[in-house]
């Protein structure tokens, strides 16, 4: 495999660095409103899911957003850009408590805690929009690590006004 090599051969420091770099680039893409690049952080068979703790704790499958393919992610971005009506807003992701989990040759599990603030351009006051944990599986690709699956589990089961951007 070109690029990053076998993941379970990397040092703890190297895999931590690679994983956190991916996470930070991913968050910057959303925070800087480069949504068109969002699906590129996923493997070609990558998937994304945003659920609440209320449902996850009951093992119920309802979700706030679920894209099973990067194609569905691109469809959502096209919809956000051309169809949906919402106030101009900014997300700011704070990601911490990065824990590296199980590794295979090609995948690594990673968990984080996150907080996302949302600021509406019209009034300027940020709110804590979402807080929770992520449970992701990353996969080695020619371009470095990509999300094979990303599952965001929000502590807050209430969404204020509407959910526009992914986390």
């Amino acid at each position, binding site marked *: 495999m070109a690029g990053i090599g076998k993941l379970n051969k990397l040092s703890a420091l190297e895999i931590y660095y690679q994983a956190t770099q991916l996470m930070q680039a991913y968050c910057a893409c959303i925070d800087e409103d480069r949504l068109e690049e969002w699906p590129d952080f996923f493997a070609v068979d990558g998937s994304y899911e945003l659920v609440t703790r209320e449902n996850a704790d009951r093992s119920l499958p309802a979700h706030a957003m679920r894209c099973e393919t990067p194609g569905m992610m691109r469809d959502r971005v096209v919809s956000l850009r051309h*169809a949906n009506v919402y106030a101009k807003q900014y997300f700011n992701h704070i990601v911490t408590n990065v824990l590296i989990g199980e590794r295979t040759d090609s995948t690594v599990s990673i968990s984080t805690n996150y907080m996302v603030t949302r600021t509406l351009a019209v009034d300027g006051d940020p709110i804590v929009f979402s807080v929770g944990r992520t449970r992701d599986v990353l996969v080695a690709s020619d371009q470095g690590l990509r999300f094979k699956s990303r599952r965001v589990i929000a502590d807050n089961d209430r969404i204020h006004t509407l*959910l*526009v951007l992914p986390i």
Partner: protein
Amino acid sequence: MNAPMKPEIDQGQINWPASEEMQVPYQVFTDPRIFDQEQEQIFRGPHWSFVGLEAEIPEPKDFKSTYLGDTPVVVTRDREGVVRAWVNRCAHRGAMVCRDRRGKADAFTCVYHQWSYDAQGNLTGVPFRRGVNGQGGMPASFDMKALKLPPLRVAIYRGLIFATFAAEGEVESIEDYLGADVCGMLDRLFSRPVELLGDERQVMHGNWKLYSENTRDAYHGSLLHLFHATFGLYRSTQKGGCKMDQQGRHSLLTATKGEETKDKSATKGLRTYQEGQFALEDPSLLAGTPDFDDGISLVILAIFPNLVVQQIANSLAVRHIHPRSVKEMELVWTYFGYKDDSPAARESRLKQMNLVGPGGLISMEDGEAVELVQQAIARDGDATSYIAMGGRKGEAQDNLVNEAPIVSYWDYYKRAMHISSTES
């Protein structure tokens, strides 16, 4: 329990024009006195409010806590399997007794002084009732039976649980309250046993009646929500219509897939009518097999005062309106499928959750619309809206470019709140 008699809204307090069109004074969305009156006249008045699905409390001892209007209530299934509901407030000093959103219990103990109740809300235990060493304790007049968690009356239709503060005789039977058309649609949607898929919760910083209007409003569908148009999946002249119950308080909007009137002139020049510039890269999002053979692909059934039942393609949900204050509401979406869903059918429902809810590609704008109104009407209580699409009478329509259910909603609201129009 009888709802306390409260004075009607003083006609001097509200100016509702007696005009040809429906003109709703914005005061009804901003005045805390009106919000208080609604709690008495509507939520504690002669109406049945939705409090949950039987599927949420399938077994004896299951419970859920929720709200009826802004009153915290608990819905339980007692040991015999009978559904009960009571106000979640200890008879002792008023503390909230049940502090879990859902669970299993056949006794409920207030944490404050450990007064305990059974699933029916009867008081069963009071610590130190007889005092300690002959000191303290309750007086001789203390009667366990006289104190309880205030019970509500419960009625169930097709697995939907409704509760009321009104005494028997003060409100119709649930079948009469809903009316034949509403019952017919619930029969259709709940003909098979349901399975819960989970909840979503959305806070809208707006008055609950703005959402009641929104869900009775076919007019906005193709104008605010542009997902279908953008991807070439929908025509704003799609066939559909609306019906109301005899009282005009409930609204049944339906639309049928694949039938459209080709009225090009109607949509000419509309900014929002994009004729499908884009195509879905992953069309599996919409690839479900219809659940019903009647061709109806959209149902928005708004049941007064606090329930919306939806079928949007294969996405099924009940939406429970919880008015938190005059300018804030929570909407709880409970998604369901059928117990006998095939794996493919279940998958379609989950996929189509992307279309609806607070992050739904079709419907995310509704929260925004509610708030846009609330923000703009902050001061001008005597100013009014202007609701006239489809005429003043609020009669059933066989089109989706009318506001008839909104007109009939407000006519009913005025009657329920004992508000008369003022002569101009």
